[in-house]
């Protein structure tokens, strides 16, 4: 995090008036003052190397995340293409996808495009868990790989293959044997994404 970044955080911690405009400029992610400071505290405690950025190992140190079958895919979401370090801004941006949707009613002033926590963006986050090579479609191979992560050694290749085939058959409407993002959205249109992909702060 550069010098400006640190100044922003310091401004957060010492600001006497809840100057939302000022720190919203710093973090284009509408979270409350206390939520951002809580997350900064958490970021700092995960950052064992104290260099202002998290590595994949820092995430792996959380035991409950390390045993999550999709743990590696989730951790990967915090690292933009080709990078090994996640700074606080990136950390916040990724977490912002999980803000409850009703919060948007309070933040009508931030209308720069669709908010990160909209239903579509939440679905995009999930889509990217499956889309390993980031080419905007889920191929049979990619689906198989992710399925393998989730089931471990407990299901045979053939069974897994037929599950993958069935899933693609169900979703694929244009016959290219891959699932595009719009096909993904269509299949999951009845799922309560807003509830299931949201984290609520207690304060």
């Amino acid at each position, binding site marked *: 995090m550069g010098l400006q970044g640190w100044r922003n955080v310091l401004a957060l911690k010492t600001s*006497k008036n*809840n100057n939302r405009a000022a720190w919203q400029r710093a973090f284009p992610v509408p979270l409350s003052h*206390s939520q951002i*400071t*809580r*997350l900064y*505290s*958490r970021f700092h*405690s995960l950052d064992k190397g104290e260099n202002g950025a998290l590595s994949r190992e820092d*995430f*792996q*140190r*959380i*035991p*409950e*995340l*390390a*045993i*999550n*079958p*999709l*743990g590696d895919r*989730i951790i990967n979401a915090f690292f933009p293409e080709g990078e090994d370090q996640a700074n606080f801004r990136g950390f916040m941006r990724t*977490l912002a996808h*999980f803000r409850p949707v009703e919060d948007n009613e309070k933040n009508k002033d931030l209308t720069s495009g669709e908010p990160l926590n909209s239903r579509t963006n939440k679905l995009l*986050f*999930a889509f990217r*868990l*499956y889309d390993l090579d980031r080419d905007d479609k889920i191929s049979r191979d990619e689906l198989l790989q*992710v*399925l393998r992560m*989730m*089931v*471990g*050694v*407990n*299901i045979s290749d053939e*069974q897994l293959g*037929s*599950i993958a085939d*069935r*899933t693609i058959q*169900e*979703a694929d409407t244009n016959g290219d044997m891959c*699932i595009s993002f719009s096909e*993904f959205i269509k*299949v*999951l249109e*009845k*799922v*309560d*994404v807003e509830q*299931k*992909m*949201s*984290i*609520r*702060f*207690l*304060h």
Partner: protein
Amino acid sequence: MEGAWEIAFVLFQVWLSIVVGLIVLPAMFGVSLGFTDIYIKVLVKTLEWATLRIQRGQKEQPTLPSQSANGIIEKDDGSMEEEIGELRRSHPKNLAGGDFTMCDAFYFCKKGIENIVEDQVTQRFTSEELASWNLLTRTNNNFRYISVRLTIIWGLGVFIRYCILLPLRITLAVIGLSWLVIGTTLVGLLPSSNAKNWLSDLVHITCYRICARGLSATIRYHNKENRPKKGGICVANHTSPIDIVILANDGCYAMVGQVHGGLMGVIQRSMVRSCPHVWFERSEMKDRHAVAKRLKDHIADKTKLPILIFPEGTCINNTSVMMFKKGSFEIGGTIYPVAIKYDPQFGDAFWNSAKNNMVSYLLRMMTSWAIVCNMWYLPPMTRQDGEDAVQFANRVKSAIAHQGGLVDLSWDGGLKREKVKESFKEEQQKMYSSMIVVNMNESLN
């Protein structure tokens, strides 16, 4: 110049005789002159005043709410089956077989993100956050300048703690430890007899009492009738090396531990002269059978003191009890569980060995306000039929957690330094697989 030295010397003698007369001697006889009680009462009043001031100050400036015991985010308590079941309910049911849906990933995703924001394990390896500031800089996480009066009290507190209490406590600690070394060596010269045992107990207890005064420790014991007896094993939750001082203030135990060099080594060697403790070489520790055998031999001898063991194996921050290693529960013998709960308002007793080494930890202890804790002796437990060592260990752990008001976790304290075992991930994968395959078989029939 010499006049100054003489005056300094006289002052030092006066100081020493006051300390010995008013603190050490009464401590040795277990008598309290009441100074500590008055000190604690004054402290409580001051901290209450400070809390009110801070709260008043906070109403004027919006500030951060502190972390409550329930954590900072809402968590669903449902099992994997319940949660994924809910997800699938909205998805049209497939008849061709298999029950995988792409929204299953949402469950793992949400759990993963929840754990990134707040997890149950890593928070146990750092000091507990306080609900309200106790005027120690080290616990000042989110508390800002409120008023002049508060700052003055804080400054006064710094002066009292560093210039008055610290020298006093260091003196007491030095006296206590030297007495331990000298006393046990002297007792060790005697031939084995009842008198020797009685004297050894006396030396140990008086030394620990002096050390407890050296920390301004106020300990409340509960259920003293359950105190560990000879030939038994005492197990307790572990927060810091000070646990030993706390426990040994009210009874004599045989310590178990690794042989150290330096000052610790000197203390260990002299302690062993007066009564049998169990010290292991580093190489012996790896051989579990040898360790178990030595402990078994010790408890089989009914004249030897009860062993003191901390089954967690590492220091935890006194908000939870983590997995008990099964070694001590396999030996047989009666287990006497003890629950220790420190009051964090007066001083943080947790030893974060990653952040502080022993010396800086002791300095922090001696510059805290006081150590206030509650100790509960629980009724003795033995392994029941059909119960294996792990289940027994968990039963004891739950009892201790329940009594002390701590969270009962089954995570291993060793996760402080080591990675989690792959087998836990495999368990999760197996659980999930059973949600896909079972339904697949059903629809094929």
